[in-house]
């Protein structure tokens, strides 16, 4: 049983806001009904059918073929079902996502998984800046769910993150885990400067030591942590190769200027 498929007819000049194009909303609708749904291209309302060829299917499954277009807001506020993007996604991917599974075969733009509360987001390529950070104006970032990035992540990964798990198989940019409140970030390839700056609680697990360890993190020495074994088993099922293969890590507690109850773990 196949789901609904949206294939871009021709790439428009502007960016397409895909807010509201979700598996749970399209489920049970005919192709004609879906084609009448409103979209915005550079802020101008257009019918979905003007941009996409629609093949209606059954169930809460949706495949989008962006054909190189810049599709923003994919999976925004998604709650259930399965959404697959056969290509790259634009900005604001999975913002406020609460459930279901969203798979992006290519790269994702900035501000993905902002304010995400649940579900699973998989990005096969690279992710932009502010992944799993806060929605604009919000005090806390990602609040639940799992994000798995097969490539690299940009700057400000997990900024003000509150709960959930982010796995990055590649590298992250600067200020990785900055101002984190809780949750777990795993970056297999290490990260740039300012890692864990302003970290309150939460865990930043790095496969390689950062370019510079922040001065305001206290060295707790080498420790063996049983929960890493637990996390590894879970993480390997989502994104193999992201977690360090040891539970014996060098622990830095910090940010001491912000309570010091967070941790940076490096092999």
């Amino acid at each position, binding site marked *: 049983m196949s789901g609904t498929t949206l294939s871009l007819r021709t790439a428009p000049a502007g960016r397409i806001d895909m807010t509201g194009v979700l598996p749970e909303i399209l489920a049970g609708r005919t192709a004609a009904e879906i084609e009448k749904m409103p979209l915005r291209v550079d802020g101008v309302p257009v019918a979905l059918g003007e941009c996409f060829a629609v093949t209606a299917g059954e169930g809460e499954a949706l495949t989008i073929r962006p054909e190189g277009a810049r599709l923003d807001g994919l999976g925004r506020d998604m709650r259930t079902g399965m959404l697959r993007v056969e290509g790259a996604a634009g900005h604001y991917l999975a913002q406020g996502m609460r459930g279901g599974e969203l798979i992006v075969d290519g790269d994702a733009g900035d501000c993905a998984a902002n304010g995400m509360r649940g579900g699973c987001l998989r990005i096969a390529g690279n992710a932009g800046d502010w992944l799993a950070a806060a929605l604009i104006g919000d005090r806390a970032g990602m609040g639940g769910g799992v994000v798995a990035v097969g490539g690299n992540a940009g700057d400000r990964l997990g900024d003000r993150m509150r*709960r*959930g*798990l982010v796995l990055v198989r590649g590298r992250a940019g600067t200020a990785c885990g900055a101002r984190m409140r*809780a949750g*777990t970030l795993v970056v297999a390839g290490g990260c740039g400067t300012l890692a864990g700056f302003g970290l309150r*609680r939460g*865990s930043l697990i790095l496969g390689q030591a950062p370019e510079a360890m922040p001065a305001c993190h206290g060295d707790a020495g080498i*420790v*063996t*942590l*049983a*929960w890493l*074994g*637990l*996390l*590894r*088993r*879970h993480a390997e099922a989502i994104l193999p190769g992201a977690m360090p293969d040891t539970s014996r890590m060098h622990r830095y507690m910090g940010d001491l200027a912000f309570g010091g*109850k967070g941790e940076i773990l490096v092999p």
Partner: protein
Amino acid sequence: MRLWREHPHSPCLRETRVIVNGVSIDDTYAEAFGMKATRIVITAASMTWAKHAANAAFGFATSVIACGCEAGIERELSPEETPDGRPGVAGLLFAVSTKELAKQLERRVGQCVLTCPTTAVFAGCTGDEALPLGKNLRYFGDGWQMSKVVAGRRYWRIPVMDGEFLAEETTGLLRSVGGGNFLVLARSTAQALTACEAAVAAIAKTPGAIAPFPGGVVRSGSKVGSKYKALPASTNDAFCPTLRGATKSELSPEVETVLEIVIDAVDDDAMKTAMRAGLDAVCAIGADGGIVRLSAGNYGGKLGQFHYRLREILA
């Protein structure tokens, strides 16, 4: 193994006898009770340390009469079977009420698992109710404890002197069966012990069942009540060989020793499977091994809602 029904030739024998490999099976039943139970998984850096913790936590847990709970190791777990990839054991705890079970669980994990080097503790089951596991023990961390949610389940990381004690927040409550039993009547103590050891080994292979007494065997089977008002239970004089001749004994002259095996199980099916395994093991030793009879303990059927008839289980 042979099983046949021996029809009485004499009109004075009123009941059909069932003989299995020379062992007479009484036409009686074990009377068991509904209990509250949970399963926990204890892991450690090695199986040795996991068993140290488990033996301490599940020690002094033979009977709810005075121990608060009945508990035991269900089975050993390989690293592939445990949540954190380390060797461990699964254990079962049984109590008469949810409140008592929660109390015993917290005390035993707090005093025996948290204290044991390298250990971690996880829920071994889910249920319709949650019992606190690390939920309150986390306060031992004095504010340094950390919460982690992995795959939707919350765990507590409590700093201790060898690193961290990891405890899942809650475990599940199981509505289970406790007090399944059978009595092994033998020609000698050595023969009774040999048969019971075989039975306990067979029961240990049954998932979801434990034999909580020392070595899985009880020598002090009890009856309800006592001549002393303060005691709710006292020795089962009808099965005490030394009282033969002085009391209304259940023992024939050739019986020198009676040992009992008590079983707690997570459900009715597990209890039946465990009892069958234990009874089969004893019957396999048979009359040649000195086993005379198999019987069971009950209270007239008025107290326990589960009745396990020996002959039906062996059929």
